Every structure is written in structure tokens, then in C-alpha cells.
């Protein structure tokens, strides 16, 4: 079965009790047992819930894994993966990782004696050089945020596996539609399900998918022992979102590409950062690695600096001024003033985040409406 068909059917089998075409939402926190000491399929909802299990089954299929685990947020999922490490272990992470992951690694994981260093993962040879004897995990994210840098997943896997280092990929930006890291040899795939998987700006969730049964069991133990599971209601909403994931992602990518190309030839724009443009440094790898699209995030620098960028993000009518991404509604933000405001100006410059940078998350609206909205904001 093709991806879209699996997203609708795998994990959503006909309910055996009622024949319901949509599986029921099971809210029970506990399950009655036949006898003492003899456990049924379900015992207590932290350890397993049929509705969450359905979502996990779908995600395992979409990412070509053996098992998946659903968490209460993306950060909870990342934390569970990081808990595979012990004191003295080293985690090597990409320079362009999500700020929340950076904070977790540097302010929480360090408390357990886990060491962390960062590397520019767009250069695979630098990744290889930065691995240490004690490295247990390589954490990468592609495309990166907000500059949409592209990391070669297969290249990183090769470098890391040569040293018996596990590779985890934050696959939130491309979603399983465009990139399936386990198929490229990665060990763990992570999603903020809040973004494209849920897709409607109304669920927080995180997903881990793995291709190895033993690793699955290790992570299941961590999840069950620490408890940050996804609720039954939210599992249902993510499952419902997955049914239109392929349609949404492909439509949003198509619009993003058209907007990127349109901005690229516009004299009011200094520079467009979009992996689908031939001038993007990661274009070649992205073309090989991503399945028929380059994502729905577009970053660009405008002529007129900080003030002009600020005026544009405040003048759009369809694009709404907010952080987050991946949903049906288009969003716009100015990293220097919003998502990366906590960095000082020099740090931002070092990361390549200029004052005139704008990041958009392209939603499902009609392309002509989105272009007209940006156009009027440029002129405003």
C-alpha cells in the first residue's frame, strides 16, 4: 500500500465490538484483570492505551519502523531519547537544532553528567571529526531552523555507525511524507506531532519511531517509567490529522516552492533560504533525500532591515504572527524579534540570523491569496 493509503488504514482497523469504521477513543485509565498476577493486553493507561497504540502503529508504518511511542509533547519525546544516555556519555548535536532541544541538552541533560557539543552537521566530515570515544548519540535536524540548512542523513549515519554511535533525527520539518530517516539507516526518528502530523494547531504531541526491537523496548521502558504519554483524546486528534497528512504536506510544499521562487526574483527581497531553490547550498542533497518536495517553511531577508521586516510581519492579514509551524494556517515571524530574540545580536549574527530575516510557515490557503497577502504587506 502507498503512503497515503497506509496513513488512513494502518492502525485504524475496524472495531471488532461494534464494526465502527473509526476506532473508539478509549479513555479508561485502568483495565479490569481476569485474575491476580495474570495481566491482560492492557493494564494501566500509562503502560498502554488502545487509542495511543493505534497512532503508534500508524507512525511505525509511515516511518518504516518496528515500533513507535507517542509522548505528550515533542520535548517529552526528545527527553526520552536523551535518557538512553548515562553519566559520562557524550551527545553530539547539530548547530541548527531547535532551541528547546539545545536547552534540554545544555541545562537538563548536563545535570546527569551527560556531555554535549555542537557541530555544523551540513558538513559530514566535521561530524566524523567531532565524534568522541564517549559519544553515544548524534542528534541531527534537517532542514534546520530557521535557515533551512540541509544535513545529509545517510552521510551522518555512515560516519556515526563507524563508531557505534546511534543517530537520532528530528524529522519535524519534512515530516514522514518527505523524509524517512530509518530508511536511510538512522536509529531513532523524532517528531513534534504538534506540527505537520497533527496539522491543525490543536494538539501538542511527540513521537519516537525506531527500526530495532531492542531499542524500542529500551525506550518503552523509559516512557513507562517516566510517564509523559500522549492522552487518548490527543492521540485521536493526531490520528485524524495523519489521514490528510500526505495531502496537506504536498499542497503546502507546492505553495512554499511557488512563494520561494516568487520572492527570489523580487527586488524587495535580499535573499531567499529555501532548499528547493537551485542556489541553496543544500539543494543537491535535499533533492536526493527529500521525497518530491522541500518542505513548507521558507525564510527570507528583506531589503530595509529590522524595521521593514517588523512592519511586514505586522501587516499581513492571512499570515498570522505566531511561532510554531506546520498547520493549515499560514504563520509569519521575525526570528530576530521572536524565536531567537534571547540570543544577543552577535550570537544571532554568528548563526546567520539577520535582523531582516522573516520565517514563514506556509499553510493550506490558496496560493494566490498568500502571494497577494505578502505583496500588500511588502507595500504597506
Amino acid at each position: 500500500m502507498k503512503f497515503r493509503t497506509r496513513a488512513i488504514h494502518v492502525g485504524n482497523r475496524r472495531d471488532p465490538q461494534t464494526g465502527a469504521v473509526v476506532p473508539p477513543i478509549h479513555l479508561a485509565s485502568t483495565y479490569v484483570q481476569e485474575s491476580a498476577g495474570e495481566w491482560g493486553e492492557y493494564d494501566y493507561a500509562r503502560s498502554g492505551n488502545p487509542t495511543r497504540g493505534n497512532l503508534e502503529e500508524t507512525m511505525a508504518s509511515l516511518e518504516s519502523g518496528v515500533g513507535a511511542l507517542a509522548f505528550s509533547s515533542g520535548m517529552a519525546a526528545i527527553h526520552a531519547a536523551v535518557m538512553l544516555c548515562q553519566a559520562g556519555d557524550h551527545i553530539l548535536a547539530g548547530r541548527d537544532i531547535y532551541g528547546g532541544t539545545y536547552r534540554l541538552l545544555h541545562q537538563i541533560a548536563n545535570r546527569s553528567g551527560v556531555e554535549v557539543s555542537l557541530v555544523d552537521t551540513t558538513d559530514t566530515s566535521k561530524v566524523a571529526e567531532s565524534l568522541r570515544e564517549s559519544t553515544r548519540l548524534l542528534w541531527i535536524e534537517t532542514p534546520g531552523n530557521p535557515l533551512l540548512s540541509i544535513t545529509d542523513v545517510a552521510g551522518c549515519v555512515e560516519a556515526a555507525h563507524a563508531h557505534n554511535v546511534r543517530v537520532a533525527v528530528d524529522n519535524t520539518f519534512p515530516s514522514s511524507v518527505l523524509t524517512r530517516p530509518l530508511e536511510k539507516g538512522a536509529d531513532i526518528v523524532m517528531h513534534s506531532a504538534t506540527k505537520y502530523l497533527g496539522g491543525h494547531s490543536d494538539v501538542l504531541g511527540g513521537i519516537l519511531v525506531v527500526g530495532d526491537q531492542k531499542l524500542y523496548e529500551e525506550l518503552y521502558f523509559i516512557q513507562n517509567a517516566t510517564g509523559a504519554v500522549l492522552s487518548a483524546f490527543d492521540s485521536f486528534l493526531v490520528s485524524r490529522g495523519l489521514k490528510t497528512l500526505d495531502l496537506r504536506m504536498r499542497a503546502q510544499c507546492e505553495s512554499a516552492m511557488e512563494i520561494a521562487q516568487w520572492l527570489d526574483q523580487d527586488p524587495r527581497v535580499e535573499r531567499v533560504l529555501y532548499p528547493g531553490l537551485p542556489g541553496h547550498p543544500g539543494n543537491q542533497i535535499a533533492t536526493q533525500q527529500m521525497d518530491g518536495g522541500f518542505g513548507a517553511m521558507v525564510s527570507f531577508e528583506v531589503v530595509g532591515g529590522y524595521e521593514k521586516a517588523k512592519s511586514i510581519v505586522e501587516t499581513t492579514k492571512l499570515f498570522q504572527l505566531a511561532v510554531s509551524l506546520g498547520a493549515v494556517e499560514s504563520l509569519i515571524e521575525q526570528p530576530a524579534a521572536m524565536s531567537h530574540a534571547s540570543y544577543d545580536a552577535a550570537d544571532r549574527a554568528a548563526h546567520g540570523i539577520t535582523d531582516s530575516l522573516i520565517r514563514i510557515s506556509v499553510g493550506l490557503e490558496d496560493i494566490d491569496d498568500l502571494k497577494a497577502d505578502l505583496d500588500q504587506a511588502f507595500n504597506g
Partner: protein
Amino acid sequence: MAAKRESEPNSLASEWGPSTRAVHAGEARQKVLNAITDPIVCSSTYTFSDTQAVIRYIEEKQPREEYGRYGNPSEKVVEGKLAALDGGEEAVLFASGMAAIVGLLMSKLNAGDEVVFFDECYHRSREFCTRHLSRFGVVTRQVKTCDYDAMEAAINEKTRLLVSESPTNPHLSVVDLSRFGEIGQRNGVETLIDATLATPFNVRPLEHGINYVLHSATKYLGGHNDLLAGVIVGQSERLEEVRALRGIMGGINSPHNIYLLQRGLKTFALRMQRHNENGQAVAEFLEAHPRVERVYYPGLASHRYADVASKTMKGFGGLVTFTLKDADWKQTASVVDQVQLFRIAPSLGGVESLIEQPLVISYFECTPEEREQFGISDNMIRLACGIENSTDLINDLAEALDQ
């Protein structure tokens, strides 16, 4: 009508494309607590600060909530979105498609009034008219579908409403909406089109001069086979009584359900493109298959109403009906039982593809004569194509047909 809120971009909605409407229409740009999505307001009742506030609410007819049966903030948002999608002034949401049509008929018809139907209509709608409205002295007349002269001939001074589905189910007959609307206008009779199978993505009956459009929102509008809802869209003035009677009869929708409908509508345009593509691909596959006798699909040149359909509809939806060559009802049932991906169930319009044999699912208790009258043959199968990959659907059907 729902009060326009500050900063609401609704004034732009008429210029927006269908997908932008589906995502944004009816919603305030700046929502409660600055959230990107609307809250689910579960409150059954709404408080007043003091007695004077109650009196002011009554005397000034203030646009605020009072009690859940009379309206709900979540409901107003979805009604606004549905009205925008159909190009209508206002929408009234009901607990189901049947609650919607019953609500409209009950509010428009008095004892002695008459209603004229095109005969290919949902059997429960027909049953309500012939078995229940008749008890209140309302007369129902049925004429052959798309026989406009017969419809005109059935109109007399007591006629209040002309009703049809378009496309009809399961034969997918397509009504010439402008002609239907014109007959109503010329005779001073209101018109209602049940456009559930078409959806506002493919046709907008109000733009053809129809007074009311009805949808079972359970189908394509909700789109995920996980809610029941019905809606009537039209001019605000004409719907005032419908809304008032709904408040008395109580067939309202629940706030949780309404949220699922709103969420489903966000991908409405996207889903419909795919339903249209899958319907067309499956219909073309079936028409070329040696075991298939006849395919009913408005997107096929062989369809009786292909001409009207191509002129008025943007696409033809996911419903495809076909008959098998030289097959009795059991041989037909065995094809239904062989498919793996399509699931055997009534209903349509969700992301999951469904299959049914009308004889078994909807007309099992009818006599053979009645079935012949309704055009339901023993060898007929109805498919509701979902949004899966069309190759998977076609492979599934090919395997079942080749058994």
C-alpha cells in the same frame, strides 16, 4: 445571523479561493486569549451580571448567548464558515442531515400545504414526508427526477416547496439547477437542493437561484466518518424561522462535535480535489472492465446527465455506482465481500473508502417491485471513494472483480 466580530476578515471571504475559505472563513482573526484555534465552548447556559442585563438582552435583542439550545459560540463560527463556502448569507447547523431537512420542512409547511419532490431522493426524507408530514395534513407529490415539465405540472396554489437532491443517490442524476430554480421563482414556490454529494466545492446551488441548500455534513464536510451533522444555507431572512424552530425542537449539535466539523473543514478543499480525482479514476477503470455492465458517474461521457454536470459542476465527487454483467444478487455480494481496502458500510464522504450493495444495505426490506420502482437492481454496487491513493483503490477493485 452571527454578529460580525472586530478584526474578522470575513469581508474578504468572498474574494478568497476555496481552500482559504475552508481554513479561515467564519473565524475571527484574533481569537479568545489570542489562540490560533477557536475554543470548544461546552457551557450549557450563559450568565448575566444582574437583572438589568437580562432585561437589556431581551429588549435590545443583544447578540449574546443565553442557553445552549438557542446557539453556541463554537457553532456560530462553523455556521459562518459553511455559509461562506456555499456563498450564502447564513447557515443553520443541526444534529444530523435528517434533523436539518426535518427542521426546514417543519418550519416552512402548514396543514394543507404541498411539497413536490424529484423521486430519486434519500429514502428517509421520503419516509418523513409520506409517513409523518402527512399526519399534519401536508401533501407530498413525487415526480420523476429531472422531469421538469412534470414538476411544473404538479405545482398548484398550495405548493410551497420544490425539493431535489443533486447529484442523486445512488444514480447520480444531476439536476439543471438554474431551470429548477427558475420553475420555483416563476411559480412563487421556494426551492431546496440537497447538495450533499456535490458539496460547495463542486457546485453552489444558491448561485443558480436556489433558495435553500442542504448538506448532510456527516459526509464530505466533516469528512472523517467521525461525526453526524446537517446544515441548511440560504438568505438570513428566510432562515429566521428555521433557526427559531430549531431552538424549540432542539435538534442542535454538540460543541465537541462542532469542533470536529470545524477541524474537518480545514482540509475540505484538499480532500474534495482528491475525492474528485479518485471518483473519476475509479469510474473510468470500471467502465473499461469486462465484468461491468454500466457505470453511473457524472464525469463519464456515457452518463445520462454528463452535459448538465460538466456545465455546472467543478468535479463529480467520490460516489460511483455500477452494475455487474450477468450477476445475481449473490454474485454481486461476493464482489463486495472480496474487496480488502473498501469497507462494507453505509454512508460516504469520509477519508476511508466504503462499499455497499444498495439492495442489501438500504432496500433489503423492500419488495422487488418497489426496488424496481426506485431503480435499485440486484447487481448494483455503490462505492464511496475516499482519499487513498487511486492505484490502491483500483488494484483492490481489480482483484475483487477478477476473482
